[in-house]
């Protein structure tokens, strides 16, 4: 699971990512694509997740206002959003503590019947 995918998840599943296996793969950089993604992102969540995984990549705590013009910044975001993938780990609900396992890169978000 890429951190961009993770960022789109509802808050009740994306708490803390405890990752035991993280993979980094090269993905072609497209500055326009990254710029378009940034407004959809919950920035603080991305930073926290990247930090937990040890891939913060010097991302600032606050999103700089003129990010579109900085290719260097966009490349960093690109790396964190699209090149870092969690293969094994857990997603945890900050409220209930319920954990959702990620195995072989596949998060399993199914709830038990009584949780729906």
């Amino acid at each position: 699971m890429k951190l961009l995918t993770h960022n789109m998840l509802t808050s009740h599943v994306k708490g803390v990512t405890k990752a035991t296996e993280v993979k980094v793969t090269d993905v072609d950089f497209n500055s326009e694509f990254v710029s378009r993604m940034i407004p959809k992102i919950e920035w603080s969540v991305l930073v926290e997740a990247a930090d937990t995984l040890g891939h913060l990549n010097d991302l600032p705590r606050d999103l700089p206002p003129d990010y579109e013009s900085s290719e260097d910044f966009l490349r960093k975001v690109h790396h964190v959003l699209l090149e870092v993938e969690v293969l094994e780990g857990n997603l945890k609900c900050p409220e209930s503590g319920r954990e959702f396992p990620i195995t072989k890169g596949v998060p399993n978000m199914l709830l038990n019947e009584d949780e729906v």
Partner: protein
Amino acid sequence: MSSNKLDKESKKRARKQMRAAHTVLRHAGISTVSHATQSLVIANGGLGNGVSRERLLDMLKGFGSVLSLLMPPNKPYAFVRYDSFEDAKMAFLTLNGCKLQAEGQPVTLYVNFVDKVDFKEHSTQSLPPGLLVVEDFVSLEYEQELLQLMALNTATQAAPKKSLKHRKVKHYGYEFCYDNNNVDLNAPLPGGLPIICDDVIDECMKNGYLKSKPDQLTINQYEPGQGIPPHIDTHSAFEDIVMDFKHPDGQNVSVLLPQRSLLVMKGESRYLWSHGITPRKSDVVPVINADAAQIVSSDLGNLTLNKRETRTSFTFRKVRQTPCNCVYPSVCDSQSAGKLNVPPSVPQSEVDASRLEQDFVHKVYEEIAGHFSSTRHSPWPKVVEFLKSLSSGALVVDIGCGNGKYLGVNKDLYMIGCDRSRNLVEICRERQFQAFVSDALSIPIRDGICDACISIAVIHHFSTKERRLAAIKELMRILKPGGKALIYVWALEQEYNNKKSKYLKENKAQLSQIDMKEAKHYELTSITCTHNMEDTSEDTAEEPFQAELTVHTNRTSFLSKDLLVPWHLKGISKNSRETDKPRVESDIEPQSSAVFHRYYHVFSKGELEELCTKIECVQILSSYYDQGNWCVIIGKLL
């Protein structure tokens, strides 16, 4: 009789004659012609109406010289070919509206000309694998001794004789409990099997028909007109009778079992094929060699009816002490997914609905994932067109993404797939797509974030209207205002604007609709098809409430909106993704195919749109019919 009344009656007859012509065309694909030919189709004059060959032939011979008379089994029509046009014309003029007594029921014959008799019976039949019929297995004297067992009710070792709805039954060894279709291992009946049966058992063991000594005996006694619904014995034979064997894929084989014969069921015939005796007063049997064990088959010029008498069967079984691990999980009570031992019902509650979907959608996809994926490689063009129309950098979620065939069609989008089946999602992952396992009714994605969503062939798997609506609402929840969603659901109408869908066109078996009528219900009453043409044409028009879901026959029109669609799993291992790999011939075991059933609610025209308009923020941007599916593109209002 006034001339007015005469006129009225002949008009009525002409109308019914027309209707019969339409019915034969629709049900059996037989076109009638208005000019005189040598051949006639006689509606209501079939074996399925209880009209015997002898009876009909007698009548037909009165008009001229009959070259051939074809009577397909269980069908409400027959074909006659005369030596000359004149003879056929004579029959045509005289027989129309003619009444006949058949099995005590009056039938009215309607006759039409046909160009040629082109009745296709599906492929030559053979006995289901593992089935063996041994004729004259029991001597006349021994037969009498055995029958005493049923007559006497004094034997202490038997469970008391019971009268079931459609037969009398007596058990030895263990009592078979019809409430749960099983035996209580902890409650053997005292005394075991009657000593008199030892001869039968010894003979079976000696000839290798049985590997271990049976410890349970069921004696069934049927009066004429009684029968037993098609069933597979929970994963654990004598008088002439026709027993019907059915493969889950719809194949039917009827086997004539002569009096005093032994029927051995092993392997596929035991575990996969269902067997049953249609409740009727007579059987369709060959005219020639009528008392020899054989398949009642395709020689349509050699079939007639045989009146039934009281019949008693002795079934010896070995009670199983451990769960079954056969290779037919789809019909095995020990292995559950998509099983049909207890046919599911149309759900009446939320709990029912959720359970039905769990057993007949989720578990099934999990089992068939590998094979399913190997058949889903080409994306539908109109879906691709939708995805290509979206702007670069759009975030798109595919709800029910299956093997991810749409996740990579437009590289400028960021696509995330989700599916209820873990095995399918893993296939997406192997293809380097982003996907997770989740339920379409609770997608773990933030509100209002997606530029677009697609839901292709998913919502028809929800078994109540409320759940289908909830699924669309969930799509709208994750869509941003101004975003749009494309939804595809399977259409009830597989023929639209006079064109058959690809699904129907790929039908190789060419099963007639009448076959489906017979095969679709589990209920005893509906197994005997309505043998009156006038009735069948009417009751297909309306949609009766059904308690039990019907099983659809693949590649044919849908006969109801809520149904179970068989999936024929190819390959040995259950979720074998190895099925794509080449395999040497000898590796493929013939019995390795299994059938699973998926629940579907097929949508009628306008139903999908109606559902969408129930949601406040939805605007229907376009709706269309595409290859057997109803489709909408809906927008979320700003």
